């Protein structure tokens, strides 16, 4: 495994199609060589997600998956999983649980990274930094090429360890090529400081991920893994990761 290859982050929707599969997938993904997992807690109206991921959210919810069950799974497997789990969900899930309770659940399961795409830093109801720090949780800001440079600078001025960026203005889904705008944006962030850049949205081939070399540190693949799973099952997902990781 080459030292400098882009790390692979696999996105999964917790409880899709059921929690047992999620557990098997998390272990299999790690085994296949992924470097981290982005686990999405399902929400009924996931505004930042495309049709495939949305419908996986809905399917998980039809199975009446609960936050408690997801954390019970994480309590059991996350601490012994050799790769980090980035927990992703929408703001209402966090606030309805209660910010500090949610953070304490994360801490108990050894979750150190949280991604909340619909929670701008300047909202009235945000996650207070001291709360996050007291639970050793790192809130990963979500960026977009179209965002104002004023907002971008305000976010980066807090020196986040990781940033999560979208490569096209749109939602998660396949895209033949990573748009140039995306590359320019990654370069721009790179020049602004020493952040671990997670880049995603629309990645669907190892060669696309290789293109990101020098621009991003971690490539997140979501919709494509879901499509592989839906069409051919979990082995197709593991094969895809293995093909990339073994290069």
């Amino acid at each position, binding site marked *: 495994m080459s030292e400098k290859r882009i790390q692979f982050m696999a996105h999964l929707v917790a409880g899709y199609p059921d929690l047992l599969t999620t557990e098997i997938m998390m272990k299999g993904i790690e085994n296949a060589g992924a470097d981290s997992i982005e686990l999405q807690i399902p929400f009924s109206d996931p*505004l930042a997600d495309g*049709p495939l991921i949305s419908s996986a959210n809905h399917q998980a919810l039809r199975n009446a998956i609960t936050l408690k069950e997801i954390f019970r799974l994480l309590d059991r497997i996350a601490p012994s999983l050799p790769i980090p789990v980035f927990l992703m969900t929408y703001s209402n899930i966090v606030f*309805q649980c209660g910010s500090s309770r949610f953070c304490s659940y994360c801490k108990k399961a050894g979750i150190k990274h949280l991604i909340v795409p*619909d929670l*701008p830093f300047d909202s009235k*109801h945000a996650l207070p930094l001291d709360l996050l720090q007291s639970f050793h949780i790192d809130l990963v800001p979500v960026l977009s090429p179209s*965002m104002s440079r004023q*907002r971008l600078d305000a976010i980066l001025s807090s020196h986040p360890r990781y940033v999560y960026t*979208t490569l096209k203005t*749109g939602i998660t889904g396949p895209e033949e090529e990573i748009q140039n705008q995306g590359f320019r944006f990654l370069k721009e962030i790179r020049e602004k400081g020493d952040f671990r850049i997670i880049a995603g949205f629309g990645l669907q081939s190892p060669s696309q991920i290789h293109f990101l070399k020098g621009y991003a540190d971690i490539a997140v693949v979501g919709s494509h893994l879901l499509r592989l799973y839906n069409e051919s099952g979990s082995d197709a997902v593991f094969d895809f990761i293995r093909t990339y990781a073994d290069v």
Partner: protein
Amino acid sequence: METRQANAVKGYFGEYGGAYLPPELIPVMEEIADEYETLRRTPTFMEELQEYYTHYVGRPSPIYYAGNLTEQIGGGPVYLKREDLNHTGAHKINHCLGEALLAKHMGKMKLIAETGAGQHGVALATAAALVGIECDIYMGQIDIEKEHPNVSRMKILGARVIPVTTNTKSLKDAVDAAFEAYLQDPVNQFYAIGSVVGPHPFPTMVRDFQSIVGREARSQFIQMTGRLPDHVLACVGGGSNAIGLFSGFLEDNEVSLHGVEPSGKGFKDGEHAATLTKGTPGILHGFRSYLLQDKSGQPLPVYSVASGLDYPGVGPEHSYLKDIGRVKYTTISDEEAIKAFFALSRTEGIIPAIESAHAVAFAMKLAKENTEKTLLINLSGRGDKDVDFVLRHYGKGYL
């Protein structure tokens, strides 16, 4: 005044409102907010809108003293603000014209929107035809089947009606589908949200466009009766017709304001859509407001006989007005609304929208208890769209 001040802070009404959005939508909403701020201070824009209100919509809509209904109730005098007489048959045209003109000024090629009963969809398709912009309307498959005449109207007006078949196949998922389409191309499209909901600036902007109703009503009522009404009532789905009328009276503390929510078949989860009555604060579709949600934060299924009231959220300004106690929010059941639907039809020869019939039903209760007090109802729409449905499901008891 307090309400105005709260509003001044970037789209918040107290603890409610805001713009809880993924980063790619934030600049889009900021652009709309900026453009709207500029245009609402531009006399030519406001004059153009006013011209359409007068010569196209038929404003001002009259206030009508419903004498026969009053007599039948045997209580305080009931007045109707006749938004049902607007072109397209409801208050929705007031904000659709504003949104369509704004979109045109911003150089957008296409208007998109969700619709429940199809009233906002028809009004937007109308405004789009008028200003010459394409129009895509997202509508749940269930609503398409229920509201067929409105689907036909939208198609005749040149709009594309896109069926939403995901999840609950109704209004909430139509909003999701419209957001999804919006994200594909926020540069050329304009998402004209159908009520005082959604991220900033929509709750403020749609309220401003609807406030013509309250301004007219206040001066008309004083002219007719020499004084202010004692009670002002409106049904609340997202809350646009209610906020439009209330905005004219918010600062008149002697005027009681009543928002009427649908209790549907009762207060079991999934059988009503009484968000302010039964909900708790939460974040959905980019804004914070009262929300019907389960313990884990998922929106609950909702139901009302009135498709236009069938939404698990509500405009953030209503949440604020509830908390500060300026507006009282109450509920009316399907059955009570249908009773009022027939009462108004048969005493006055005015068939109301089932949505508006909720406000009429509550006014009938209130008038009976307050024989000395005057009541003003926002008759937000006419019931042409509902006649087949009402006869099929409720005709037996009345024919």
